[in-house]
């Protein structure tokens, strides 16, 4: 049988040796992400801006120019019209102008232009108030996730690990958001779910490394921290790459074979997996170096735990 190994048996990379460069790059990236978020902004979908979206399919191929001309007469809103797939057209009217009256008018225009053979594949309407509420829900869910994770890691490890974990998590979320500000891919409700999931995935990865660091701390009581961290990250490297690879591939399958609706979600996840892997190797452990770990507290505790289990 064909056997292979993604990472060779024993690695000995000096990850901590490059930690200053890595931390600088990550910090610069986070700053850029925040700056771009406020200057360039996200391309918010109608889930958040409120608005109207209609996806239609007709038996005969439609000329997009005809649709455009027919809808030019809509008194309110500026529709974006986009053609994709075979004879599918997406009409989008974002913003507050898109109310129920506009929607009714849009239906009438589409019916007039394309007859009754039109197939409505998807119609979405989000009122401006609901959009506002959905933003708040997303922000709240993010904050509570952070608190939940912080509390759990604090409980299982030491507070230094909790704080570091949250920084690594914020790093990954920033990177994902940076990706969306740069590409201007649409940011909608399922993308928010993906960003939160990136948070969950990233912390999962980081916890595995932390776990090993704790174990190594117990084993080598006198070894200097950078060397000790290097050993821990190298020991878990094979697992980190293996798991990231498989999650990445699973998401890639979704991108290749999934529908248009889920694309934003998939992009966010793919970016998140790459960045999450990077951060658990190059960001989390180096930050822990600066966290003033008290080894004498961690080591006995870990021993007691091991004895118990």
């Amino acid at each position: 049988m064909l056997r292979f190994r993604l990472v060779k048996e024993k690695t000995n990379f000096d990850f901590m040796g490059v930690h200053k460069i890595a931390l600088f790059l990550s910090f610069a990236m986070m700053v850029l992400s925040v700056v771009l978020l406020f200057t360039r902004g996200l391309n918010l979908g109608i889930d958040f801006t409120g608005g109207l979206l209609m996806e239609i399919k007709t038996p005969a191929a439609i000329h997009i120019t005809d649709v455009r001309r027919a809808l030019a007469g809509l008194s309110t809103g500026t529709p974006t019209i986009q053609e994709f797939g075979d004879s599918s057209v997406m009409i989008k009217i974002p913003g507050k102008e898109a109310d129920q009256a506009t929607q009714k008018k849009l239906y009438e225009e589409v019916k007039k232009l394309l007859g009754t053979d039109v197939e409505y594949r998807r119609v979405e309407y989000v009122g401006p108030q609901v959009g506002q509420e959905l933003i708040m829900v997303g922000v709240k869910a993010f904050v509570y996730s952070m608190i939940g994770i912080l509390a759990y890691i604090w409980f299982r490890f030491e507070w230094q690990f909790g704080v570091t974990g949250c920084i690594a998590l914020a790093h990954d979320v920033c990177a994902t958001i940076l990706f969306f500000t740069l590409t201007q891919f649409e940011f909608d409700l399922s993308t928010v779910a993906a960003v939160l999931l990136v948070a969950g995935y990233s912390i999962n990865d980081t916890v595995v490394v932390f776990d090993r660091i704790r174990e190594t701390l117990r084993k080598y009581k006198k070894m200097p921290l950078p060397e000790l961290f290097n050993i821990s990250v190298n020991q878990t490297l094979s697992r980190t790459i293996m798991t990231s690879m498989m999650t990445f591939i699973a998401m890639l399958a979704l991108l290749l074979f999934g529908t248009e609706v889920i694309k934003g979600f998939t992009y966010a996840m793919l970016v998140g997996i790459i960045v999450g892997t990077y951060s658990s190797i190059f960001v989390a452990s180096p930050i822990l170096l600066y966290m003033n770990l008290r080894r004498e507290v961690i080591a006995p505790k870990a021993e007691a735990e091991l004895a118990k289990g």
Partner: protein
Amino acid sequence: MLHIEKWKIIFILLLTVLGVLYAAPNVMSPQAKTWLVDHMPSWLPSSTVNLGLDLQGGSHLLLEADTKTVISDRLDSMVDAARTEMRKQNIGYTDIGTVRNGVTFKLRNPAQDHDAAYKIARGLEQKADIRIGDDGLTEVTLGDDAIKEINTQIVNQSIEIVRRRIDETGTKEPVIQRQGTDRIVVQLPGVDDPEQVKALLGRTAKMTFHLVDMEATTAELSPGSRKLPMREKNGGSVIIKKRAVINGDLLVDSQPTFEQGAPVVSFRFNAIGAKRFCDVTKENVGKPFAIVLDDEVISAPVIRDAICGGSGVISGNFTVKEAHDLSLLLRAGALPAPLNVVEERSVGPTLGSDSVASGKVAAMAALGFVFLLMLGSYGLFGMFANIALFLNMIFIFALLSILQATLTLPGIAGIILTIGIAVDANVLIYERIREELRNGRTVLAAVDSGYRLALATIVDSNLTTLIVAIILFSFGSGPVKGFAVAMSIGIVTSLFSAIMLTRLMVIAWLRKTRPVTLSI
């Protein structure tokens, strides 16, 4: 390591069998399922996963009851009532009007009229807070509790009416639920063009019968009259007496029919309505009266004779569809408050089945990739993990069926993500076994400590992800929620399959072959 209690083995195998049993109905043809329900004992599982509206096609509407209008209407009528009562009892007052959630006026002789005014105020609203100052300034306000109660009542009534209207359209298995304080969720499976439903729900359908004010001129309206637009005549209007002689809630039936070839709507009153209609028509022969629907005069015929049979027809130049819809609305009853659509998500049936199909392909592809990668990396142990992964998929569907959770498109994405995450536990264990072997341990010792040492890490990493999933579930709405459900279930089942099941397989293999070296 080789030792594992018998009851544990039985327990693990039992759970596995149950998982397969509960997942099985999902892959059966509809015929096979009906056969199963008819011929097999009822304890055998037969429920399948609920497909969300985005997968089976359908319409999701979020309606908001305009309770503010209702409350301001109620305050207006309280003002009217107060005015009438005080005139009747010769109580002097000035500055009557509405304030926030209440009515206010000023008594001219507070000392003399205090008690009478208090009584009138109490009569306006049982639960109101009443304050009469020494200077005669009176405030009758509804407290927060009273407002809340009114809101609850409005929404509950609205849900009832919405249900009746939707039942009349023949939609199968609609879901109508309250959300928050003043919102109603309506889910209509199979309805891909919700415009018709929205047209039905968008009208309060409050029907009243009024006398027409013959004396009033357009320029001068008496306080008891109002001008309403006429439906038939374009731009015309009719001045009617404000007080309704009969309300639509006294109707018991309404049907679309034809009269002289034109579509009309017939109606029938209950006993009280019939009596009142008889009296009103008897007293007003020769005069026009107005049938008003949602502040629009549908028709204003002249009464030719007293109508005492308790039924009549409304003619108003209807189309067949209009007559049909109007009779439906009258049958179902009026909404206590206007409902506004604040969110709508409709998916056509073909997009739904396209999503399911592409989701299946994506899941298969993801499974295939992960299969190969695990097999190539860990050989036989990879195969064990693959079997566990396959069973894990079955368990996810079993749990979704048992919990009757709804599978949505983001839910499918969640399951595909779990494929990647589920094998993580095995990767952790196997990498650990490799390490222990490198450290010179025997096969048995390495496998043993591999499972033992990896366990804490697995629990830690999965619990953190589960925390995120649960928070997503409690905050999320719609798509996010569906995703969180699938994700949480996936994490729980993967812990079972990746740890317990593979362990069982590994032990069975070790017992049988007793290997000295291990290729992992």
